[in-house]
């Protein structure tokens, strides 16, 4: 797999440098380039910090800016950032109202953010929201619970708007917890990915196969199944989501089709069309929509479907302005 890079070791740093240079109006590097932060922080609000391994771009750096995150820490490809990065971000962005760490539920991320919170906890008020939106397609109970995947965007948008509106740390953290029960995502992959370090595909699929239930780290999914039409694929995915979310006809849904990096936008809109038609047949209301490549797994061909049950106040938070590199309205 060919990639635009110079050396695997410097790939993340070079890409981040380009990101900051391209968006200098919005963002800047934090101390020692350990994280990326808003160019101008707003005092008097809770600082929102997220992060994770590289390879998910534009998440999270693309969500740094007014109305979303204050800082994002990026690790090596598919490897969570280290506590020193997170601690540096906490120090630089906490304006006295405390910090909310938004963490995807992957063991590595959870442990590194946890160590950072422990080490910085003496000097800062810190709360953590662990995002857990993936659908467990097998339905079996696993000890570590759902992964945090594309639904993370929804959580960061809503909490970001709430923080901007002056919500306090405990309020934000409560909303975050609450959202975990109302956002579900399922991903499908048509092609494995190549981690730049290893230069080998994480899994190899045949022409008539796909992986159902994948996460965003090139890991294989819960099942390898036969490739099918977009209608069939989306129907399977929605079924898994809806049996879990159980929306009723009065619910206002957010429907989010997310590309994994190697999927053209035309296919994402086609999948959106399938999902929209299916939901219409079920009589549930799509109140908000998002289609695009936001939460990626390097250049993986595939997409995820996210559905969120939102209440009125969250619809307003969703509609509130965002001024970031990747989301802007």
């Amino acid at each position: 797999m060919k990639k635009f890079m110079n050396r695997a070791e410097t790939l993340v740093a070079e890409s981040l440098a380009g990101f900051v240079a391209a968006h200098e109006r919005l963002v800047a590097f934090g101390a020692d380039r350990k994280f990326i932060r808003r160019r101008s922080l707003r005092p008097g609000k809770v600082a929102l910090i997220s992060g994770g391994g590289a390879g998910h771009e534009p998440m999270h750096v693309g969500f740094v800016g007014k109305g979303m995150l204050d800082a994002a820490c990026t690790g090596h490809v598919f490897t969570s950032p280290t506590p020193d990065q997170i601690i540096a971000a906490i120090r630089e962005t906490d304006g006295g109202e405390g910090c909310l760490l938004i963490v995807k539920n992957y063991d590595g991320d959870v442990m590194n953010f946890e160590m950072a919170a422990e080490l910085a906890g003496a000097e800062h008020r810190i709360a953590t929201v662990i995002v857990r939106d993936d659908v467990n397609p097998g339905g079996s109970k696993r000890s570590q619970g759902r992964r945090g995947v594309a639904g993370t965007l929804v959580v960061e948008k809503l909490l970001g708007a709430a923080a901007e509106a002056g919500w306090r740390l405990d309020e934000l953290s409560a909303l975050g917890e609450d959202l975990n029960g109302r956002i579900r995502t399922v991903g499908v992959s048509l092609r494995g990915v190549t981690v730049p370090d290893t230069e080998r595909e994480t899994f190899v699929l045949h022409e008539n196969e796909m992986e159902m239930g994948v996460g965003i780290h090139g890991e294989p999914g819960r099942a390898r199944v036969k490739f099918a039409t977009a209608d069939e694929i989306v129907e399977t995915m929605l079924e898994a989501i809806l049996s879990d979310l159980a929306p009723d006809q009065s619910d206002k849904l957010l429907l989010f089709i997310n590309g994994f990096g190697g999927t053209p936008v035309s296919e994402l809109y086609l999948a959106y069309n399938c999902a929209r038609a299916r939901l219409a047949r079920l009589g549930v209301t799509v109140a908000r929509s998002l289609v695009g490549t936001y939460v990626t797994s390097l250049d993986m061909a595939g997409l995820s479907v996210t559905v969120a049950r939102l209440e009125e106040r969250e619809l307003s938070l969703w509609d509130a302005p965002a001024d970031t590199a990747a989301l802007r309205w």
Partner: protein
Amino acid sequence: MTVLANAALIGGLIEACREVIAANADHLSELDRAIGDGDHGTNMRRGLEAVYADRSRLVQLPLPKALEETGLTLVMSVGGAAGPLYGTLLIEIGRRLVGANGEIDLARALEHAIDAVARRGRAGPGDKTLLDVLYPVHAEVVRRAGLAGISQQAERAASLTFGMRAMRGRAAFLGDRSVGHVDPGAKSCALLTAAICRFLEEQCPA
């Protein structure tokens, strides 16, 4: 062990660990590719290189402090799941050794540290992680097995993860499909154990 000067001991351990990881990094990533994200070798190598780069400072420290500092360096350089786990292990061994009066009680320090790792990882025996090597290693230490015995048990324990269903870490997302592969973290743990035992054996033959 007491025959070896502190600096030589620490330096030698660092060297031995760094070497075994460098030599097996590709294999570890290969194992991780089967049930994880294929970077375990790269992560561990990065960590051990960071420790190695810091060795001239570390060898000056008393052993407990050196262990703690090494753990912190691993935490800050490895990232991923392995960083906090190996880091916590060394930090806690070091802290407990510091607290011990008189003779070093490795068994109790190890027990304490392994508990901390399990808490950090919210994991336990049979979850197909590096803990499945750490528990038997501790048991061998408790029953005062020789270095060769510890090393063998560690290797055996790593192999046994082949049949386990992963319950923690990325591999858990595979469910039953994680069965039939050796856990990369268990493997690196066995390799490090063996390298340490080998080094100690060479330095102070029984």
